[in-house]
């Protein structure tokens, strides 16, 4: 099976920061807004290089979303930055009316998603954001897996006209995708081909899925790993083509099983080709304080949990 090399652990939020810095130099219409988390979002370099195009809004996320919507009128491409919790739940109605329903070209960039935010605990660890955002008509929802992919996605969404939710995280995780990749919104990435089971993963769980596939391969189980960076619009063809071959699927995400990638995949399968599915996701719960590794283990969001789910789904085939 195809294997991937970790070129060194890096945080996905730094991929966003690097992409934004590049956009700052290459696209004069790009502007950025931050709600008092410039360092955490890695937006400092953009702020330093383009002070006129950077807006510090203070601890006022609702206002930030409205200002971003207004900035589009006259051609600007605003990128908002704050934690995922404050990018979604806190400002849902502002996004719904002023951005999504109004069809504004705003890029909502959300860091510290999921339990891997770690020690700050449940108030800051949103596990419902993918669901909230994918339910908004016209909203594109992207959850990237590593530094390189996050940078590529940041560049790609500036070229796309329409509201986007870009989700990434805080911890340093393996950086394994190509440095100069082309990021195609809505197009799944086939990572390893296999015949026994399809593993559809997003975000931090993609590397865990690859690790699981390696272990499963040693146990004689051939897993096909698909990296779904775009949850909406979902690459239905890639999923259906794969399960035609494997006849079962495991979905893996750092999110509640309600409203997440798994439910989107289940909808596609139930409509077109119902096959057994297992969900690696949080089980309708809030998070808690701890290290990212401890939390991923406790909430069943790692390679070990994926392998267990694969065995369960194979038994149901």
């Amino acid at each position, binding site marked *: 099976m195809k294997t991937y090399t970790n070129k060194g652990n890096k945080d996905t939020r730094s991929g966003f920061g690097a992409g934004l810095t590049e956009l700052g130099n290459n696209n004069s219409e790009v502007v950025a807004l931050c709600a008092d988390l410039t360092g955490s979002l890695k937006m400092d370099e953009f702020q330093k290089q383009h002070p006129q195009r950077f807006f510090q809004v203070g601890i*006022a996320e*609702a206002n930030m979303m*409205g200002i971003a919507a207004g900035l589009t*009128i*006259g051609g600007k491409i605003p990128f908002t930055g704050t934690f995922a919790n404050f990018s979604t739940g806190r400002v849902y109605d502002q996004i719904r009316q002023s951005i999504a329903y109004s069809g504004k070209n705003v890029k909502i960039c959300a860091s510290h998603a999921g339990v891997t935010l770690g020690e700050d605990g449940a108030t800051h660890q949103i596990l419902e954001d993918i669901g909230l955002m994918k339910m908004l008509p016209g909203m594109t929802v992207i959850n990237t897996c590593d530094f390189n992919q996050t940078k590529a996605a940041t560049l790609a969404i500036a070229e796309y006209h329409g509201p986007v939710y870009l989700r990434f995280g805080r911890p340093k995780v393996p950086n394994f995708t190509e440095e100069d990749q082309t990021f195609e919104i809505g197009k799944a990435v086939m990572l390893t081909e296999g015949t026994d089971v399809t593993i559809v993963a997003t975000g931090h769980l993609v590397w865990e899925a690859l690790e699981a596939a390696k272990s499963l391969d040693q146990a004689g189980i051939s897993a096909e790993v698909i990296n779904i960076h775009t949850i909406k619009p979902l690459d239905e063809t890639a999923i259906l083509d794969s399960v035609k071959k494997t006849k079962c699927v495991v979905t893996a995400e750092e999110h509640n099983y309600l409203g997440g990638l798994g439910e989107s995949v289940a909808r596609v399968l139930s409509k077109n080709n119902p096959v057994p599915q297992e969900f690696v996701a949080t089980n309708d719960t809030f998070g808690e304080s701890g290290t990212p590794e401890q939390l991923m283990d406790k909430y069943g969001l790692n390679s070990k949990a994926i392998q267990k789910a694969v065995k369960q789904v194979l038994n149901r085939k």
Partner: protein
Amino acid sequence: MSNIQELENLSVQVRRDILRMVHKVNSGHPGGSLGCTEFFVTMFNSILDMKDTFDMDGKDEDLFFLSNGHISPVYYSVLARAGYFPVEELNTFRLIDSRLQGHPTTHEGLPGVRIASGSLGQGMSVAIGSALTKKLNNDNHLVFSLHGDGELQEGQNWEAIMFAAGNKVDNLIATIDLNGQQIDGATDDVLPMGNLKAKFEAFGWMVLEIENGNDLESVLKGMNKAKSLTGNGQPVCVLLNTVMGHGVDFMMHTHAWHGKAPNDEQLELGLSQNPETLGDY
């Protein structure tokens, strides 16, 4: 159009439009619409510097945002009579497949509207954003917004008010419709907001009051004065004193007609107080 008589004739016709629109579908918000008729008529005919054709970006022209979207009847009537879309389309207000939704939206592509509003408290942030873009684009035109007084109970406004002053957004004129009424009663009974002039000033805005927002000459003079205050490092707030339901005697000075349509008899009475001037749609 700057002749006061012409603006007066248009105001009377707009009041007829408002009454007929909400009566036809037995829904909508006549009270606040009637109270803001003189403001809208003045803005779209004598204040705003606008291009002949509508485009979303609105570069090199003044922009207007309605934050309290429920007073869509007056907005639609004035937009139509300013040539944004056919006046006959007022017939479709709140009907299925119409561009004239209950609350204004960009979603159906109605010319004149650049943001959806209805869920209250969001318009000032949007107006600030577009004002910042005007500065980035070296566009010297102004951004205007209108807000209900009750709407200021929404906290997002105060985030926006703080930001606009702190960032010297001085190409913005935000008007507050001070009619003292909201759905559940007088604003002073529902949630007293205290001295709004002092509040805006304490936040760093320049504040101008229009004592009689239902008098065309006062509105014209006041809004021109507001324009002259822009460009001085501070955002400008206009406190516009209006009477909810103005021009239809039984609808005045009460919150009862905030979101209620007149019946047939009430419509006739209201129309008789506002005889046709420019022709009904």
